[in-house]
């Protein structure tokens, strides 16, 4: 209601909806064509990581909470999905739900602990908790230690769609990604999302307006963890593998890099960032440790010269919101 009274704001929001809608349609069309041009497994991986980065962006971009431990949710969801699908023979949809559930639970515990401290401490706590769960994964029997869980069956989705078909699997991953993407978009444009942005801008003022910011932060954290878990579960189905790589801190670093490179707090930034980083890791894999160096250089360049990220810079140039 208040918005209707402010003509400049109204114009802005109308313009925003327009540019975002076009961009979304373009993205859907692109993802419909790409599997005929590019290797589908690569696309599926990139889509999983795009969802992961979007989930991460919900927290860092819209609440201003920098988690350094999101591999925890991605990796543990991936383990649970892989284990339930392989050892207990759960169908894929149920295995994914199992993965999401564990990610939500871990998100509740880790988030509840981490939001007790702010700023820089928040990042260190999430990193430490993720490292703790990394060691659990290393020692626990069911994770298969260094070998991971291999040969995970993709199964039949809802008993109908055979996911061992590459194209069927691709469509499944794409639908899940789009659903997750729209869900996150819905969250950040809801009244709840407005409070999250208020916390990002000025937490003390938000508290003085009567909001229990801790609860908002916790809910946002759990949502972000859950969606990160969804990404991890899908990833383990795509590769039919869950391994220590998924829970290692380098994974938390990767998702951070994707989001930063694409643009913190932009809607499409994490997707673009994920595709760039995954493509880079793919094509530069032959150069061994140089990938690490290049990723580090991107971090440094982004922070010093390029804090809006790729999508943020484009959006600024053409003066729309993306």
């Amino acid at each position, binding site marked *: 209601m208040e918005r209707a009274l402010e003509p400049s704001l109204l114009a802005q929001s109308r313009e925003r909806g327009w540019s975002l809608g076009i961009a979304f349609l373009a993205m859907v069309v692109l993802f419909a064509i790409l599997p005929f041009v590019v290797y589908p497994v690569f696309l599926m991986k990139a889509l999983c990581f795009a969802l992961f980065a979007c989930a991460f962006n919900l927290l860092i971009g819209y609440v201003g909470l*920098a988690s*350094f431990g999101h591999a925890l949710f991605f990796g543990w969801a991936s383990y649970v999905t892989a284990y339930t699908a392989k050892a207990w023979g759960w169908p894929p949809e149920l295995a994914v739900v199992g993965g999401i559930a564990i990610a939500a639970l871990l998100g509740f515990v880790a988030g509840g*602990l*981490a939001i*007790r*401290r*702010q*700023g*820089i*401490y928040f*990042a*260190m*706590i999430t*990193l*430490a*908790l993720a*490292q*703790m769960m990394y*060691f*659990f994964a*290393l*020692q626990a029997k069911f994770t298969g230690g260094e070998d991971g869980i291999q040969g995970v069956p993709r199964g039949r989705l809802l008993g109908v769609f055979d996911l061992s078909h590459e194209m069927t699997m691709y469509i499944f991953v794409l639908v899940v990604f789009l659903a997750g993407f729209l869900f996150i978009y819905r969250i950040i444009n809801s009244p709840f999302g407005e409070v999250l942005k208020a916390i990002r801008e000025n937490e003390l003022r938000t508290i003085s307006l009567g909001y229990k910011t801790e609860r908002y932060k916790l809910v946002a954290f759990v949502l972000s963890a859950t969606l990160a878990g969804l990404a991890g579960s899908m990833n383990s189905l795509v590769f039919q593998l869950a391994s220590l790589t998924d829970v290692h*801190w380098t994974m938390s*670093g990767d998702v*951070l890099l994707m989001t*930063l490179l694409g643009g913190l707090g932009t809607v499409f930034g994490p997707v673009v960032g994920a595709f760039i980083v995954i493509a880079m890791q793919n094509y530069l894999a032959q150069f*061994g*440790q*140089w*990938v*690490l*160096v290049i*990723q*580090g*250089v*991107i*971090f*440094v360049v*982004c*922070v*010093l010269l390029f*804090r809006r990220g790729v999508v943020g810079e484009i959006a600024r140039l053409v003066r729309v919101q993306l």
Partner: protein
Amino acid sequence: MFEIFGIPSQALFGQLLLGLINGSFYALLSLGLAVIFGMLNIINFTHGAQYMMGAFAAYLLLQNFGINYWAALVVAPLLVGATGVLIERLFLQHLRKLDPLYGLLLTFGLALIIEGMFRNQWGSSGLPYSAPEALKGGRNLGFMFLPNYRAWVIGLSLAVCLATWFAIERTRLGSYLRAATENPVLVRAFGINVPRMVTLTYGFGVALAALAGVMAAPIYNVSPQMGSDLIIVVFAVVVIGGMGSILGAILTGFALGVIEGLTKVFYPEASNTVIFVIMAIVLLIRPAGLFGRGV
């Protein structure tokens, strides 16, 4: 030989000693982090990589120039500290007005660059670096065997920690530092070159990490990834202690090393995770950390 709680004394004191050694490194590293954080308001993610650089500096000085351990104890921290000064001048000084998050991201990126380059050059396997002749061997204390080098590490680390504490809390230079932490504009108005002090503080914190690296070289193998796992544990130590107090950082570091050592004796499966569990408990009971002020 006697037994305590059914554990042979040799094993118990041996692990206790190892715990104190680890604690020495936790203390030195968290001290460096606290000093840097106090002045620059940045969590130095590169700290682990700089610790590794210290160990490598010692190794390379010996291999290429025949510079021995004793000289390396001084030269390596100076060299690595100088790279720290360079990093502060080139990168960190531009972040002063930004959200501290960017400092974390930038130093994280630097850590990746450094670790990647060292892995490229020297691979992932550990390189041996032997303890100096004078500190080889050990003595039998009756209840345990104490290797000389380990006793030296604990003693030196304690001495360096206490000297740092003294320099910051009890000297004129330290009072400038503390004043600049509270109100840099005012201290600058008194004619003190605060930016230079910030640069040197960063260099000093980095040098502390490098010193820890030199001391660690004969105990652990010198390898490019020796710092990255350690730094995460040190972050947990810092969260537990809180970065408000220098003495607190030192005490927490040693205490957690000992606790970790004892866990290795009584419940080895948890020895990797005990510090993180303690962190979680401290967050529940005292969110500001044991020695912290505010959140």
